[in-house]
């Protein structure tokens, strides 16, 4: 028993080293929110993202490193609307950090700040991995990003009143740049209006809503279920009647299904970044939309 205790203590000595902290420790569930937090928080925030563009935010495990990060966070920024229902509640429960529990200022749910689409009238599991609170992939509409940014700025001030002016200035600057970028994107993407696109999963609802793009079908037979050969054939039939311009998928989705459908139909496949880090030059929210629109319009020409 004594040996055991000394083993404990030695291990603690070796592994525990309490690090220095920034004004606000921000834990973002997805890279887009980490990026937004950095835009608005600058040097007053220290941001980590729980996931990368290569990971499916629906399917993350509450692994030890994430629990440790939530333990020390002052602010969680997540998409919400049940996107993280499989892991975030567990992280919040295990991290014993009262500051970031639901319904505290330390928990910022981005999708709660905007109107959501795809809210089901009724739900059961036969509908697949559906979100009762609506489609959570809200960051793909720059207009919604704008609303969320405003709300996040208010939240940052609430949590760190000393940085009030700093946050406000950064927000004003961000907002100006964003507005300009939005105008540019809308111009660039004007040709996309009415385009029909096949998606892998319904990640793109907000982007398409913004650009007036129509969903021609989904590779997943039900949200969250893998593509099947049978489903691809039936998709092919549908597309024969109403053709589509392209098939899009994210970095974290297996391109096999998209490629197979492309072979069957001749429709080109486009990989979109989906979030920050999802393509080579996508370093922030601005380049995310730059690249997204570039790739979408590249096919359209």
């Amino acid at each position, binding site marked *: *028993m004594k040996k*055991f205790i000394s*083993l*404990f203590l030695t*291990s*603690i000595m070796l*592994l*525990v*080293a*309490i*690090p220095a902290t920034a004004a606000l420790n921000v834990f973002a569930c997805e890279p887009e929110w980490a990026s937004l937090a950095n835009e608005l928080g600058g040097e007053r925030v220290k941001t980590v993202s729980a*996931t*990368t563009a*290569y*990971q*499916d935010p629906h*399917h*993350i*495990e*509450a*692994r*030890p*490193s994430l*629990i*440790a990060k939530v*333990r*020390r966070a002052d602010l969680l920024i997540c998409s919400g609307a*049940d996107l993280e*229902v*499989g*892991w975030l*509640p*567990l992280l919040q*429960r*295990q*991290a*014993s*950090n*009262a*500051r970031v*529990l639901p*319904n505290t200022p330390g928990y910022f749910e981005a999708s709660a700040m905007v*109107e*959501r689409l795809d*809210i*089901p*009238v*009724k*739900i059961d*599991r036969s509908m*697949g*991995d559906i979100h*009762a*609170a*609506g489609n959570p992939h809200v960051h793909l509409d720059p207009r919604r990003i704008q609303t969320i940014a405003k709300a996040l700025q208010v939240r940052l001030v609430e949590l760190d009143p000393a940085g009030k002016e700093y946050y406000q200035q950064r927000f004003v600057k961000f907002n100006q740049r964003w507005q300009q970028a939005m105008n540019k994107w809308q111009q660039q993407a004007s040709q996309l209006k009415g385009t029909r696109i096949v998606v892998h999963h319904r990640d793109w609802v907000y982007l398409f809503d913004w650009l007036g793009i129509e969903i021609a079908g989904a590779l997943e037979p039900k949200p*969250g*279920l*893998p593509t099947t050969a049978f489903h691809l054939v039936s998709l092919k039939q549908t597309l024969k009647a109403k053709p589509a311009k392209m098939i899009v998928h994210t970095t*974290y989705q*297996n391109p096999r299904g998209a490629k197979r459908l492309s072979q069957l139909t001749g429709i080109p496949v486009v990989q979109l970044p989906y979030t920050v880090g999802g393509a080579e030059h996508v370093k922030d929210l601005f380049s995310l939309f730059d690249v997204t629109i570039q790739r979408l319009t590249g096919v359209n020409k």
Partner: protein
Amino acid sequence: MKTKSMLLGLVTFACLTPLTFAAKQDGFNPDISLVLDGRYGSYTNTSDYVLPGFMLGGEAGRGEKRFYLGHSELSLSAKVDDMFYGKLTTAIAEHEGETEVELEEAFIETLALDHGLAVKAGRFFSDIGYLNNQHGHTWDFMDVPLVYRGLFGNQLIDDGLQLTWLAPTDVYFKLGVEATRGNRFPAGGASIEGNGNQAVFAKFGGDAGISNAWQLGFSHWRADIEARSAGTHAHGAVSEVPTFKGESEVNGIDFVWKWSPNGNSRERNLKIQAEYFQRSEDGNIEMVGSSPLESSTYQGEQSGWYVQTIYQFMPRWRVGYRYDQLKANNTGSDAGVLAEAGLVTDGHTPERSTIMLDYSYSEYSRIRFQYSKDNSYDDGDNLFFVQYIMTLGAHGAHSF
């Protein structure tokens, strides 16, 4: 045009709020989750199940032949308020022809104690080891490793109190202590009037690059045991019940490594997991019910380990391999009594190799095929099982 769309927007927004609530619908009712578990077993043995060198109890067993039901598990959980979380899990199971409702869990837990502290009270799965606190339907095989079967009667569940502290460090470090009643196997009536059971554990964990994550745990468990009798599960109706009184101490180490390409477990992922436990016991065995009373001193040294790996090679499909082994070296004044208590090994080393293949149509449905070359006792056998596990209701948590 613009006015109209604004109007529409307004109406839509006005609608969305209540609708969201509608869809969420559970209102204040607790989250309910139901697990259905059905099995088909095939093997040739007809002898009672034993593990040479180990007293069996709890849920320990081999599984039945032909069609049978596993535990049908009903869970209710909810936040009590913003400070407490509560959960109850009952399992409906058939044991020797009797339908029994077992209370697996009934605990409350603090949510907002802060400073990394949390208290759990009630009946709960102990947090020692890696596998112990996991519900049966999340196991990667149909059954537990032999070392859990031999030492804990499958899983250590007890009534009491747990205090944990999570360090504010980059590396995950969690320390926990448990003080429990110890009425159930393997404590089986711990002494100090129901307070003779303590456990300590420490867990470390972290990531190694973007694609790897790991966890390492150390556990210690001890009990002053008043009367642990071998369960009737494996022995049927016996009139002389071997009963242990004395001290028991378990030390364990567990390790898990998970890999997936870019940390995206959706398509492919690999999990390697190993645990080792060692138990020392010192006391007496009495054959309760014998006349004149037979008894023996007893010093037990038992240990066991397993290593297993699970690989999801494409969405929905996983394969797994597990090897486990036990060792026992028990001594006492009366070899006959020890033999009747199942504590004599006769030189047999229990070991087992298991392979499994499972298919998950969705996150909520799984069908599993499992084959074991089981030499856990002398009458070794080939065990083949088919199992389905289906989860109805609340979304399960993806714990590590």
